[in-house]
């Protein structure tokens, strides 16, 4: 159990480091926008948290591979984002987001949930203790799914969500720019404790994605979103 506040405690149960960074983002989207919105945020974070593949050479030096990038256009949101050019990474994120989306649609969900992206380090412990996972950065994306009544509302939602995502990207970049704690560059023997070396073209920091579907505490958020849209129409 985590001595720190629940905000900082990762869903996976990893113990946060004392300098663990926790950021929360909130978005309200229509059902069909969930996938693209989540991918946009997660990919933007991982763009900043991935390097090229390390190639260790003699004397403890290493060279770093090259990370390519590509633009992604959203179909249901007036928005575009940049992601790392790695099909493996994209597949992994899509899988996680797909499960989250399905859970949000499923019964027992009132359209509210959150997806968590944790970056952690492994700390090897001596036998008989198992390795620790030290959380050093936690991103929580809270999602509210709204239901819209007509095409006009949907069109406005396309634009509004696009604008909101622009804000989120700016927020993410701002956090990244703080140059706060990052794990030390590891030696060859330690690299798997810091990075995910399983992908063949890029090397993100060790990360985990998990999600929770929360029970609705009321329909207040959905109402606010509707009101926002209605206000826009009234103008």
């Amino acid at each position, binding site marked *: 159990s985590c001595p720190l506040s629940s905000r900082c405690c990762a869903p996976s149960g990893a113990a946060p480091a004392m300098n663990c960074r926790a950021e929360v983002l909130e978005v309200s989207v229509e059902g069909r926008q969930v996938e693209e919105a989540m991918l946009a945020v997660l990919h933007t974070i991982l*763009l900043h948290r991935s390097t*090229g593949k390390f190639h260790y050479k003699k004397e403890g030096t290493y060279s770093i*591979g*090259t990370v390519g*990038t*590509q633009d992604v256009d959203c179909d249901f949101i007036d928005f*575009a984002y940049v992601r790392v*050019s790695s099909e493996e990474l994209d597949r992994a994120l899509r899988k996680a987001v797909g499960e989250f989306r399905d859970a949000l649609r499923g019964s027992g969900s009132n359209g509210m949930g959150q997806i968590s992206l944790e970056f952690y380090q492994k700390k090897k412990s001596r036998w008989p203790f198992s390795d620790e996972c030290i959380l050093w950065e936690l991103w929580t994306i809270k999602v509210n799914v709204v239901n819209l009544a007509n095409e006009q509302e949907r069109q406005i939602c396309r634009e509004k969500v696009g604008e909101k995502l622009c804000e989120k990207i700016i927020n993410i970049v701002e956090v990244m*720019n703080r*140059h706060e704690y990052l794990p030390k560059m590891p030696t060859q023997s330690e690299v798997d404790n810091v990075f995910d070396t399983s992908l063949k073209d890029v090397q993100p920091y060790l990360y985990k994605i998990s999600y929770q579907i929360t029970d609705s505490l009321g329909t207040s958020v959905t109402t606010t979103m509707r009101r926002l849209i209605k206000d826009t129409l009234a103008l």
Partner: protein
Amino acid sequence: AMDTDLSSQDRKDLDKFIKFFALKTVQVIVQARLGEKICTRSSSSPTGSDWFNLAIKDIPEVTHEAKKALAGQLPAVGRSMCVEISLKTSEGDSMELEIWCLEMNEKCDKEIKVSYTVYNRLSLLLKSLLAITRVTPAYRLSRKQGHEYVILYRIYFGEVQLSGLGEGFQTVRVGTVGTPVGTITLSCAYRINLAFMSTRQFERTPPIMGIIIDHFVDHPYPSSSPMHPCNYRAGEDNAAVYPSVEDSQEVCTTSFSTSPPSQCVFTVTKAHFQTPPPVVTDTLKVPVMGLAFSHQLSSSRLSYQPAALGVGSADMGYPVLFAGGLNAAHPHQLIGPGKEGGVPPVPSHPAHGTQADQERMCTPLDGVHYSAATPSSSEDTETVSNSSEGKCGSPHDLLETIFIRKVGAFVNKPINQVTMANLDIPFAMFAPKNVELEDNDPMVNPPESPETESPLQGSLHSEGSSGSSTGNTHDDFVMIDFKPAFSKDDILPMDLGTFYREFQNPPQLSSLSIDIGAQSMAEDLDSLPEKLAVHEKNVKEFDAFVETLQ
């Protein structure tokens, strides 16, 4: 003293990093505005040429421009590298959208490791730049370019110029990286006042299905090319200080000879005109392709103010007095300066050095320009090049606006000659006169429409409407004859039909035209403080005038 802490190798590395960082920054920004999706591949084996471990292609032309702008220097305190992104319509209007600034401030981080930490942080900053370039408004505009507008870039080095972004521009910070010699900052200032060009306007027309151009061959780019920076507007948000009345120059106080009917006399009592503040520094260099006026360009950029002598309604407050020279043979025609008779042209622009430079840059290659100084804001090329030929620019047009129609309605006889020469009192044209002169009163008879008109206006009213009996000039119809019923009137010499023909195509009110309205509104507002100052100066006269009314 600061540099001795940094080994020479580190210093060399740092300079190299900063230089290539600057070049890559430009590439990312320009490529993000080409209007296409960018895709580069990851490569697990380092190729050795991918700076900052990122696959960012180098468009040779862009690198060339960036290197030219930097001219061997590096961003330093007070010397920033700026990438200006602007939009240019097919009609020639252009508007600055964003300025990306790579700056250096004095805050040093001595402890930081150059070859490792700084390098990695610069890499992170480039990733942030990739992300941020997709979230400013210009991105969506640039993705839709090709049909009605294109996006242009311009690189300059020196002082950051944000005045072209309009009021209320916003800033987003991409990030900072501390180094032992200073902190590198990357940010973007972007226009939010896209009032006269909303993205919606361009969403309706699909972009042309274009030829796919391979960027990485040395072709000229249709969508992003080094901007012809020669004509641009000074922004509405003028940072310039409005000079006091004494500083403003008078444009034309020339008067010409009065008697011959083919000449005109006019006096512009005062033009509000702003002396450009001297802000140019020598280090400011603006790369201009093929032009040698880089220094003047920058100075004209910094100092050029829209000469408020335009057709803004506020300008009518300083009345233009004139005598219409009238050709008896063509009662409906008006003689303006330059047409008949030897009236010397009046310079339409402020007579300072940058003016000449600006006109020099109006080469035919540049096509249409958007210039704040001339009355109708969306000029066609002729007007601009005419002004460089020496023909009257704004005062000419202004005159034509006021030129009275020769034959008024309900008037039996033409008036041959009206001379109001040497009348220096304000509102002389409205002063009580004999009946004949009253017919020349533009308040009674609407004036001719301005000769030059914007493309937007063209469809709204016919050209040169004079209502002559040769028929109107409406686009779709030619009226042969007009026989209104019950229109014969014994009392008046003119029948309803003639009246109708004469007045069926009134000129568009200049203040109502979309572009002029917005333009002159901004000018009017800009010129208000100075006008107020002048009025205050003349308050005694006004008081006296008011006294006479009581």
